[in-house]
């Protein structure tokens, strides 16, 4: 018998949907199974977009990408995909794939051979190195690069060229979370995992539009609320978003004024007796940020933060703060989740600390359903950059460049002299591009990222990028950055190379190579090794024949550390759906909670009767910080009376380098826009779809108005995705003094009808 193509496709569509939610196939046609088995090969991988780490299966037919489906066996998403991930395979063959090297000649980028391009890069870098020293060179990497790629780049720049000017774009999104974890708990990254969501009855979401930025996590929250009728969600955010649909209490705060609220919640928890005094006694120290203080000092410090004071700061109802504190305190379990609304702030580290404070006060850490859990923006910001040493102050394995012993250990593995690794941190991202603007950095290698669109206060930095000898390794052309580069190197895209991604929950997952690289493109790791050889460092890199060699060496840098990956061999990672470190040997199943029973590094002898021992701190105690409630760098004024905040939408991702290639996604929101509160729009005489001018002290942008009841009065929101409308000419480049992360989330602006 025969069936029509239409019926076959309907059966396939139903079967795929049924499989994604784990129910019996709705159409038991043997046609589908036969067709799928015979013609399509499916490769296990991880989604290329946000930091959730969804497992995907990439289908290949006749050597070409055929389709994508969620990986049912992956514990993260269990087969579910968001709309961006669903189009991932189409990006491999996007029209703007860069297929050959480009070199700038007479002001224009022209096609060149690999030899010509690489000889030029190596000779210019050597020339700069000899004339101006190693710190005139810089590397700027990405939370989207695979761990092996980031590791190799750090090895070359920090270990051989000898500069710590090697940073990455997680500086712009996650650095404050790193600062928060390391200062509060002694070590970076969360204590728990997604598994805690299944046990949690109270979620506090702050500064995150989870429904749009992390849709699969949002679905986990939805499912948890359905499974547990007593489960509640508190939301602290300046906007109403689709996340509100599952929220029980929304504190719609004035942007930049939420630190006082966290102190007020802490004060209320103490006043109402919700603290875990034994936990505090066993596992907590107190600090004012400079010196140790006592618990009583901390209580006295909090007295200023009455609900009324905090509510006045944030322009909300004080009763809601009390209600939020009591919901948090009464629930036996609690998880706080946050994202860019917390991190992209001049007080980002402080706010991270204040989130950890309420978990430490109540002991809601290190047990099922409890964690202060940072959501990550990029797929390998944790695994590649935070773990493999991709920031200017760190080395692989959560080590520090400032620590002599750490430099020694890493130098030995890197087969280089410990003296080659400088003992002081290099320039963080904003300082690095600032140095380029001043002419101090003369050569820069940019891998898999687009700073000419993503840096804040762009007009200040783009001229310097143009003057610098700029090398961009990219899969796509043009981007705002590759357009102004001197050399553009075509590199393999997702699916065309093998590697490892580490997601939000400390899970390292293997991505299979399913396809050959397009055109003349090459694996980034191969290009970095090639550059090392051409610069004269061949001996230190000749043993790397492929990604597995790189991973194996990287594993050694993690051995014995809090993020031990010794047991996560390539062989093992290819078979399993990731492992959550520490995983010290190949029989270890991975770790759910750190710093407690079950963590292989939990020191039972030192811990005694303590439930948690924060072994990265000298005395095993975490720190509750009495931080000042610092407001935004640029508060509104009579001249600039409106708050500008920026962010993301569901269908697009970052600078649209990938999602911008999929017309289906672009057409969902085809033109740049600003969300205006209806009351403001009325006051300003602006109607829906009118053109509006947004002016800050740094620039002017004209976009369409979207009048919608989402932002607070006096606040506008602009998604930052569109390259033809650079939102970041408006944003401020003031940074957090601890994390050096810029304050994308708050700036003062004027709004007028164009």
């Amino acid at each position: 018998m025969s069936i029509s193509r239409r019926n076959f496709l309907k059966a396939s569509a139903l079967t795929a949907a049924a499989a994604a939610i784990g129910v019996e196939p709705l159409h038991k046609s043997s046609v589908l199974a036969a067709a799928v088995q015979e013609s399509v090969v499916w490769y296990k991988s991880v989604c290329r977009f946000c930091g959730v780490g969804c497992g995907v299966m990439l289908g290949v037919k006749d050597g070409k990408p055929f389709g994508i489906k969620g990986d049912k066996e992956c514990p993260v998403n269990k087969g579910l995909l968001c709309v961006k991930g669903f189009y991932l395979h189409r990006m491999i063959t996007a029209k703007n794939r860069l297929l050959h090297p480009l070199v700038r000649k007479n002001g224009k980028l022209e096609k060149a051979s690999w030899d010509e391009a690489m000889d030029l890069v190596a000779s210019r870098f050597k020339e700069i190195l000899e004339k101006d020293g190693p710190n005139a060179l810089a590397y700027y990497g990405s939370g989207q690069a695979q761990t092996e790629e980031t590791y190799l780049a750090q090895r070359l720049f920090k270990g051989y060229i000898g500069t710590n000017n090697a940073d990455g774009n997680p500086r712009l999104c996650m650095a404050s979370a790193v600062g928060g974890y390391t200062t509060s708990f002694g070590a970076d990254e969360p204590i728990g995992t997604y598994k805690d969501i299944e046990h949690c009855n109270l979620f506090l979401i702050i500064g995150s539009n989870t429904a749009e930025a992390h849709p699969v996590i949002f679905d986990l929250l939805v499912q948890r609320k359905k499974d547990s009728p007593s489960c509640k969600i508190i939301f602290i955010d300046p906007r109403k978003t689709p996340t509100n649909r599952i929220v029980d209490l929304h504190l719609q705060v004035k942007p930049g004024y939420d630190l006082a609220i966290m102190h007020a919640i802490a004060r209320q928890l103490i006043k109402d007796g919700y603290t875990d005094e034994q936990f505090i006694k066993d596992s907590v120290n107190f600090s004012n940020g400079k010196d140790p203080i006592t618990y009583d000092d901390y209580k006295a410090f909090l007295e200023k933060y009455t609900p009324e004071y905090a509510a006045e700061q944030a322009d909300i109802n004080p009763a809601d703060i009390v209600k939020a504190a009591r919901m948090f305190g009464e629930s036996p379990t609690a998880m706080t989740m946050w994202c860019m609304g917390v991190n992209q702030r001049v007080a980002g580290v402080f706010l991270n600390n204040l989130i950890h404070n309420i978990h430490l006060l109540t002991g809601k850490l290190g047990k099922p359903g409890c964690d202060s859990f940072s959501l990550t923006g990029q797929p390998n910001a944790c695994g590649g950059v935070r773990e493999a040493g991709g920031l200017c102050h760190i080395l692989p394995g959560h080590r520090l460049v400032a620590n002599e012993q750490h430099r020694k250990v890493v130098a030995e593995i890197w087969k280089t002299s410990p003296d080659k690794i400088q003992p002081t941190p290099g320039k963080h991202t904003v300082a690095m591009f600032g140095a380029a603007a001043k002419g101090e950095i003369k050569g820069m290698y940019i891998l898999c990222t687009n700073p000419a669109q993503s840096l804040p206060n762009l007009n200040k930095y783009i001229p310097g990028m143009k003057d610098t000898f700029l090398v961009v390794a990219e899969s796509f052309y043009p981007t705002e950055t590759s357009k102004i580069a001197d050399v553009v190197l075509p590199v393999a895209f997702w699916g065309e190379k093998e590697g490892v991604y580490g997601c939000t929950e400390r899970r390292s997952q293997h991505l299979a190579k399913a396809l050959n690289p397009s055109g003349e493109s090459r694996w980034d790791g191969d290009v970095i090794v090639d550059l090392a050889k051409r610069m004269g460092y061949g001996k230190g890199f000749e043993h790397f024949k492929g990604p597995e060699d790189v991973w194996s060496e990287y594993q050694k840098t993690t051995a014995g550390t809090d993020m031990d990956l010794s047991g996560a061999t390539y062989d093992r990672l290819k078979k399993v759906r990731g492992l959550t470190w520490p995983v010290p040997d190949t029989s270890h199943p991975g770790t759910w909670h750190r710093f407690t029973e079950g963590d292989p590094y939990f020191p039972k002898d030192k811990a005694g009767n303590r439930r948690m021992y924060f072994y990265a701190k000298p005395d095993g105690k975490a720190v509750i910080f009495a931080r000042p409630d610092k407001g935004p760098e640029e508060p509104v004024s009579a001249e600039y009376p409106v708050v500008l905040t920026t962010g993301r939408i569901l269908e697009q991702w970052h600078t649209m380098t990938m999602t911008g290639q999929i017309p289906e996604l672009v057409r969902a929101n085809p033109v740049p826009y600003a969300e205006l509160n209806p009351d403001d729009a009325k006051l300003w005489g602006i109607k829906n779809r009118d053109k509006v001018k947004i002016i800050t002290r740094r620039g002017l942008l004209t976009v369409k108005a979207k009048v919608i009841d989402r932002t607070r009065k006096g606040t506008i929101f602009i998604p930052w995705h569109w390259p033809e409308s650079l939102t970041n000419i408006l944003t401020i480049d003031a940074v957090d003094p601890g994390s050096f992360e810029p304050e994308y989330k708050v700036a003062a602006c004027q709004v007028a009808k164009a």
Partner: protein
Amino acid sequence: MIIASMIVTTQKGMAEEVALQLKRVPNLTTHGVYKGDNIIVVMEAEKEEELVNMSRYLMNEFEDILGTYPTFMASEDEVDEIEEK
């Protein structure tokens, strides 16, 4: 012509009612409610972009819909007929 499927998740206890409302949306067929609040939906449309547009439309227009998760899409024009073994 493309055929696509997706999972539509709803507020607790609202899936049957939402599924009923979705029956009135052109080009959309619902195929039951599963595991509590998941509706399986199949869409037929002229262009691929309509899957994203539909996803956005459902999120914007139906307060009780919490998420839309695409699971399959293919074009009817690629192959004419497939023989069943």
